[in-house]
Structure formats: C-alpha cells, structure tokens
C-alpha cells in the first residue's frame, strides 16, 4: 500500500515532538529529527512561534527552542485525536 506524503499537521507535530523530547534543542537537531530541509523548517518554526506553541531562547550564544505550555497542551490534544482517529483506521 502506498504511503501518503506527510501532512502539514504531521510535520508540525513532528517538529513539536522533537522539541519535546529534548528541552532546549537547537535547529540542527530538529532538522535531523523532523527530517526537513532547512528553509522549510525555518518557516514552520516561525509559524509555531507565532502560534505560541514554541519559544526561542538565546543560550550560551546559541538559539534554542522550547515548548510553551500551549505547545504541550496542543501535543496532548493531538495525541488524543490521534488515538481516536486510529480507532477508525485513519492515519493522521
């Protein structure tokens, strides 16, 4: 069965999950973890920042990303929806 391309939502969730796994993560780590080209990743990170799901902090001369409270809540809600969708055989 052919695998579908990742949806935009799935990409955003993959980014959030890679930030969640390791609090205070650099962009290069997200790049490999979320498997995205650099320019697209930057666009998604800006979108997540605007939505208040992540925050950018300068630490020891490096830019690091953290999940906000809203970001954690969003992931929690997504996982609930994912379990619900999975029950009906729907892949998100």
């Amino acid at each position, binding site marked *: *069965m*052919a695998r*579908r391309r990742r*949806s935009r*939502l799935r990409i955003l969730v993959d980014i959030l*999950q890679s930030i*969640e*796994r390791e609090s205070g993560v650099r962009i290069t780590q997200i790049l490999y973890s979320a498997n995205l080209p650099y320019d697209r990743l930057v666009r998604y990170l800006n979108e997540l920042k605007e939505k208040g799901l992540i925050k950018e902090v300068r630490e020891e001369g490096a830019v690091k990303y953290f999940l906000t409270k809203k970001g*954690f809540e969003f992931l*929690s*809600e*997504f*996982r*609930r*929806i994912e*379990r*619900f*969708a*999975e*029950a*009906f*055989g*729907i892949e*998100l």
Partner: protein
Amino acid sequence: MRFILTLTLGTNAIGALILFSISYLSFKALKMTKVRFFLFLFLGFSILGVDSFLKAVIFSILLATPAPRVVMYVSTLTLSILSTLAEVFAYILIALGYTDYFRSYGKLFLAAPIVPVLAVHLSGLIIAIFLLLYIVFQAFTAYVHSRKRNQLLVMVGFSTILLSRILRLIAITAFSDSLFIASNLVYFAGLLCFLIVVLMVTRSGKETKV
C-alpha cells in the same frame, strides 16, 4: 408495553450521551486535522445522537401521559420508521466518509459502492444492514492492518449494532416483543464499545516526559 417503553427510554437516553461524545470527538478531530472523514463521522453520529435523544424524549412523554394503547402503538411505530430513516441517512454519511478516505489513499478496492443496487428495493432497515455490513468491513480491514485494541472496539461496536439491526428486522417480521427487547439491548451493547473508545481516548496523563 410499558416495560418496552421504559427499556427503550433508558437505552436511548444513555445511548444519546455516548453518540454525542463520539460526535464531539469527531468535531474536535475535524477542527484540528481538517480530514474530511471526521466531517462525515461528526454528522453521522450527531444524527444518531439526535435520533436517540428524541426517542428518549418521546418515550418519556408516552410513559408520563396515560394514552390509549392504540395511540402508543401508532406513536411508537411512526417514531420507529422515522428513526430508521434517520439511521440509514447517518450510516450513509459514515460509509461515505470511509469511501472518501480510502479513495484518497488509492485503496480503490475498498471504495465499494455504498448503497448496493438491490438495497434500493428494500426497506430502510435492510438498507441500514447493508450499509452496516460495509462499515463493519472497513472497520475490520483497519483492525487487521494494525491490530490495535481501539480498532477492535470500533469493529466490535459496529458489528454489534449490525447484529441488533438484524435482530430488529427479525423482530418486526416475526412480531416478537422479546426479540425487539433483545435488539435494543444488543444495540446498547454496541454503543458501550464506543463508550470505551471515548474513555480510552480521553484518559488523562502525558505519554512522554514534560
């Protein structure tokens, strides 16, 4: 007769809550994911929920008012027919959702015709049974693919509802009160499977570290 009305009232009242829970989760899923399948699921389960709720309301009115037996029979028969039509419409929507979703994934062999040609000539209940067969097949395919517990529950839920509709059909043709009661109880058992899914989905606690 009063016992049947009371039983139907109880199962429909609780059933409405369960069905509205599924439609609420479907709405939340639709809002977050924009996947069209959830729109069909939301509409389908909302119609089923409204149907159950209205049955509960009407049965409670019938129980409360001292209507003559013939009025009660005519009322319940009319309600039954309207309810069957609503159910058929709801199952069409849910079946449409599965067809739309699997077609978009290129799983064309699963996008079978929603309403078999033969079912056009048959009553609403038989149409519902055919639609439920299709829905059960989709749910079964989903379960066989991944073998997750929540998928098994959805499959069992729809299968149990299908069984209840078959029992209801036999009950109507055989004029059997006991089979009618059994069909109600089996339908309710099917809804309990969906209740478990709702409880499993909404359980609290994060899965990964904060």
